[in-house]
């Protein structure tokens, strides 16, 4: 029997899952409970069956980007492999699963144990999402010698340089800002300034996705946002969902006539994503992304710098904020030596870019040499995984 490859980019916000030959299903990697539904929890995409999404309660497998709640993770994985989501015959499947850089060894061992002993998969590859993104990028740009992958996800942001397809571990930089922190901060300031939305993580996350953008000129936008409404091109109203007529809220011009509750979005629209560029704005004593890109590059050989700077790959859900790429380019330009060309690639879908890399890798003639087979695990245990996986 031929083994098929199933790619599972196991993000803290969503798992991107599917057979390498298909398209990925994006599954919320959590269990949710709704105030209005006492009878059942909602696992992954089951949330689509929930009518009233107000005050959703989240049970997440991840803490700070690493799996700690294994019962929740196992429940979501069971859901993913079930008839309801992506039914596959696991014993005839090779799984490519992602893990963050510097994943902890207890977590790695637990993952391996679950996949071989419980799911009984035919073989396993554990790999960083950035490495899959690098593979994807190199597939599209075969002449690029190096690239630097920026992954702006839910729990944090990683900057990972690759030279000749080799991950330069010493150059990896983590910024503890991702989409979760941005949503929580937005929740906090909206609750203080306008309306108590502290319990509305789900809704405010959508407010963030629908309203926020990355400013090209921060202090200038602040000046615009200070103007009165008629002269202020930034201020908008966000019409909140009521889960009767409106399931997802939307942005509209201020003062638009509506029966629904609205949030006024002004400097919030750009000061939220700005935290990715200046974590110190909320008291996190770390560099922002542009500075950290330079810090990462400086660890690599000087002769690779022009190649790295010419091949920056911007991935992860937060990369979808309008203006992200342009601003990053502007800031890196101002920090990098003038003689180097800078190019930033923003994929069409920055969320599934790593998954797509995994799908391409599954077709690589080398794939079978990267995996650990069930028989190898049974004979040599965890040790063979440490030997084989580069993480």
């Amino acid at each position, binding site marked *: 029997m031929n083994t098929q490859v199933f790619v599972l980019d196991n993000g803290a916000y969503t798992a991107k899952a599917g057979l390498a030959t298909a398209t990925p299903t994006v599954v919320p990697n959590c269990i949710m409970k709704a*105030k209005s539904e006492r009878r059942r929890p909602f696992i992954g995409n089951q949330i689509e069956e929930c009518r009233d999404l107000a005050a959703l309660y989240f049970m997440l497998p991840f803490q700070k980007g690493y799996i700690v709640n294994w019962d929740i993770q196992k429940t979501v994985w069971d859901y993913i492999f079930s008839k309801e989501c992506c039914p596959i*015959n696991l014993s005839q499947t090779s799984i490519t699963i992602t893990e963050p850089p510097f994943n902890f*060894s207890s977590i790695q061992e637990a993952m391996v144990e679950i996949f071989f002993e419980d799911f009984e998969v035919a073989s396993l590859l554990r790999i960083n999402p950035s490495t899959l993104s690098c593979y994807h990028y190199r597939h599209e740009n075969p002449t690029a010698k190096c690239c630097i992958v920026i992954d702006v996800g839910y729990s944090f942001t990683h900057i990972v340089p690759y030279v000749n397809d080799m991950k330069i571990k010493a150059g990896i930089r983590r910024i503890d800002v991702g989409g979760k922190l941005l949503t929580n901060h937005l929740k906090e300031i909206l609750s203080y300034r306008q309306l108590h939305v502290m*319990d509305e993580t789900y809704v405010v996350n959508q407010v963030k996705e629908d309203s926020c953008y990355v400013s090209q000129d921060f202090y200038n936008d602040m000046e615009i946002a200070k103007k009165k409404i008629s002269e202020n091109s930034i201020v908008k109203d966000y019409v909140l969902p009521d889960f009767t007529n409106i399931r997802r809220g939307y942005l509209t011009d201020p003062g638009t006539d509506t029966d629904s509750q609205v949030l006024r979005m002004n400097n919030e629209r750009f000061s939220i994503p700005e935290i990715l560029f200046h974590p*110190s704005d909320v008291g996190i004593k770390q*560099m922002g992304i542009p*500075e950290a890109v330079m810090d990462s590059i400086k660890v690599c050989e000087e002769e690779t710098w022009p190649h790295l700077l010419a091949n920056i790959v911007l991935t992860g859900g937060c990369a979808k904020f309008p203006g992200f790429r342009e601003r990053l380019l502007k800031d890196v330009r101002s920090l990098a030596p003038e003689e180097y060309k800078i190019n930033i690639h923003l994929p069409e879908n920055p969320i599934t870019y790593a998954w797509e890399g995994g799908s391409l890798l599954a077709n690589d003639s080398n794939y079978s040499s990267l995996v650990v087979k069930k028989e190898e695990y049974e004979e040599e245990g965890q040790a063979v995984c440490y030997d084989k996986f580069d993480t």
Partner: protein
Amino acid sequence: MAVRESGRVKDAMQKRILDEDARKRRQKKALEALEQDNFHEDPHADLVMHKKAPKFQDDLKNATRNKRKTRTADYFKQRFRKNFAQLVEEDLNYNSTVPNYTTAQAPPSAFPDRHFCAVCGFPSPYTCIPCGARYCSVKCLGSHLDTRCMKWTA
């Protein structure tokens, strides 16, 4: 209005001042809040959810998987039970090869901090003397004193 406001401001300023430790605690709490999964409590904490999900259990049995009864989610909770702080600690102790999780964090920025009004979010030139928060105007200082400032304990 202006007179009353400045009177109130004066009053507050003469009260205690938040010491350095308390300011640090407050900052730490604010950062922890940004990591929280939920602000509110589990609305159905009284229900045992895994057992109340028959639909899902049935699906599991029917799934195109073979044999051996899978272990329950609870088993994994017991089997792997390290929290995040323990994982970092363990990593530093037993697996101290550099680079690692701890060394990979981005260092502090070389650029100076920027300051924003704790009330309205616009750039702020002034610091509240009692607590160290930033404010941009008398109006915002007023709301800050009324709502936060020394009213929070950390």
